[in-house]
């Protein structure tokens, strides 16, 4: 079975600026790929290439088995796009927006009407169906935009920062919709700046920075790469901080990070509980009074910061 999205060596430059510099990524059918990166990393450029809005300078991109350059019409029939800036029409009602999209996908009038009603119900917008979009809240707008992407039940759905600027409740709703999409057999590529979102939704993650892939894998794999856990210790006396750092250096898997103000230091460790006991024993032996101890599972944020830092160094050298 062909992958939903298959991109090899995608390059796109704007004058001297290389927005995409040889990106490879694959979305296996029926899975969610999280495309993660800071602002300006090239996420939106990648989305525009995948959705035929932008022609790549180089590289080979196939969506639903079709080439985005030579078979763009087939690609468009197979995708649903929900934009970063909800590209819904302010002067139309919710119903009219969906009806229009349905007709443009080639639905007959009756079919477009039924599908619009069905989606409005699914996205809890029935009450607002005949209100102009400009009266909608941000969350409602986003739901309608997402509904628009699903009108033709496309096998591949591309969501460009679907929850940016949404309140927590609407964000949870959107996540629920994405899960339901995948249950129904769709493949999803979603870009996000929120690590939590990728963690919750994505089967696999690709991290890009400055147009290059800096890491890829499942959320667990990425976390494993920065050490399995984080040990954090707070001492009672500020004078003991250097001693604490020494101990953490001995037992940890990386350089400890110190917060002088809070009399606290933390370090990434491989086997959490064992290292914790070891660290406490050593501190006890050196008469360091410990105020608080905690062991954290690493968050995707740690991975992300580490990866984009490393990319920074690479750029400078």
């Amino acid at each position, binding site marked *: 079975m062909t992958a939903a999205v298959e991109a090899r060596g995608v390059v796109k430059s704007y004058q001297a600026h290389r927005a995409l510099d040889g990106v490879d990524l694959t979305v296996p059918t029926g899975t969610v790929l999280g495309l993660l990166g800071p602002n300006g990393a090239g996420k939106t450029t990648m989305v525009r290439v995948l959705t035929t809005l932008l022609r790549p300078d180089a590289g080979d991109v196939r969506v639903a088995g079709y080439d985005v350059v030579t078979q763009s019409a087939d690609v468009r029939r197979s995708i649903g796009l929900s934009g970063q800036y909800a590209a819904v029409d302010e002067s139309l009602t919710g119903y*009219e927006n969906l009806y229009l999209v349905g007709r443009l996908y080639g639905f007959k009038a009756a079919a477009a009407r039924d599908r619009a009603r069905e989606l409005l119900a699914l996205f809890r917008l029935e009450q607002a169906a005949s209100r102009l979009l400009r009266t909608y809240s941000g969350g409602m707008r986003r739901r309608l935009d997402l509904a628009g992407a699903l009108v033709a039940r496309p096998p591949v759905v591309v969501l460009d920062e679907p929850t940016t600027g949404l309140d927590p409740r609407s964000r949870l709703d959107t996540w629920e919709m994405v899960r339901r999409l995948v249950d129904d057999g769709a493949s999803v590529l979603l870009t996000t700046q929120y690590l939590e979102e990728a963690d919750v939704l994505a089967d696999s993650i690709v991290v890009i920075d400055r147009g290059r892939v800096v890491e890829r894998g499942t959320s667990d794999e990425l976390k494993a790469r920065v050490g399995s856990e984080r040990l954090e210790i707070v001492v009672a006396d500020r004078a003991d901080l250097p001693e604490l750092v020494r101990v953490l250096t001995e037992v940890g898997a990386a350089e400890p990070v110190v917060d002088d103000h809070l009399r606290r230091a933390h370090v990434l460790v491989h086997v959490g509980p064992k290292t914790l006991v070891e660290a406490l024993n050593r501190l006890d032996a050196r008469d360091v009074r410990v105020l608080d101890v905690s062991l954290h599972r690493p968050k995707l944020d740690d991975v992300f910061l580490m990866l984009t830092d490393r990319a920074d160094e690479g750029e400078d050298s």
Partner: protein
Amino acid sequence: MTAVVKVAVDGWMIAWRNLLHVRRSVDWAFAAVVQPVMFVLLFGFVFGGLLGGAAYREYLLAGILVQTLAFNSAFTVIGLSTDLRKGFIDRLRSLPMSGVSVMVGRTLSDLAVSVVAMLVTCLCGLLIGWRVRGSFLDAVLAFLVLLVFAFAMSWIGALIGLISPSPEAAQSAGLIWLTPLTFVSSGFVPEESMPGPLRVIAEWNPLTAVINAVRELFGNTVPGLDVASGSWPDDHALAYAWLASLVIVAVFVPLSMRAYRRVAAR
């Protein structure tokens, strides 16, 4: 569904959407309806007294009609440029539809606005004494000449709208060239009254041809205000009017389509 039918249906859908916008926007209705009425009254009664009273008002109407339709091309400019800015065009481009439909839909909906503006102007004309004095068929032909001309102007607007960097820039770019174009014509005063070079420009201005042709077809020729210069455009106003509209369409449709694809690649 064959490709041609799909393009036509999509074009109709886009036109439907654009007309919903017009219906829901006060600005558009104002510009399309109030402006021609205002011009008919201002010119008819401010300059009219000096230029021949009732006879001048009859002479004037063809000029106002053509001016109104020419200015309506600014709707195409602003509409397209705003859709581009707001991401609506991108949304359409991600759908399985042709760019031709987007452009045809836009020019057709603007044509519908022009029809309304034309009817309002004529009604206003009737109120101040303008009449169709020619045959019924000639009048139908006159309206046809006007509509084809409006459609052609709309495609010039489409190109401006697509290449403008912003809706604000588009708005001024869409209007600035229209004022001299409409005034240096036979719309308000006979071109014979203009000094040398200006008269030549006015004679060859395609708007003059459309105005003269329409004036003649309506039977609104007025002794003393009329053309008899013997130049080719004056003697072949109707032919030149058709030719000008067709040339504009032939040049600006491909240019606009190319601009649409360019914008697409940004």
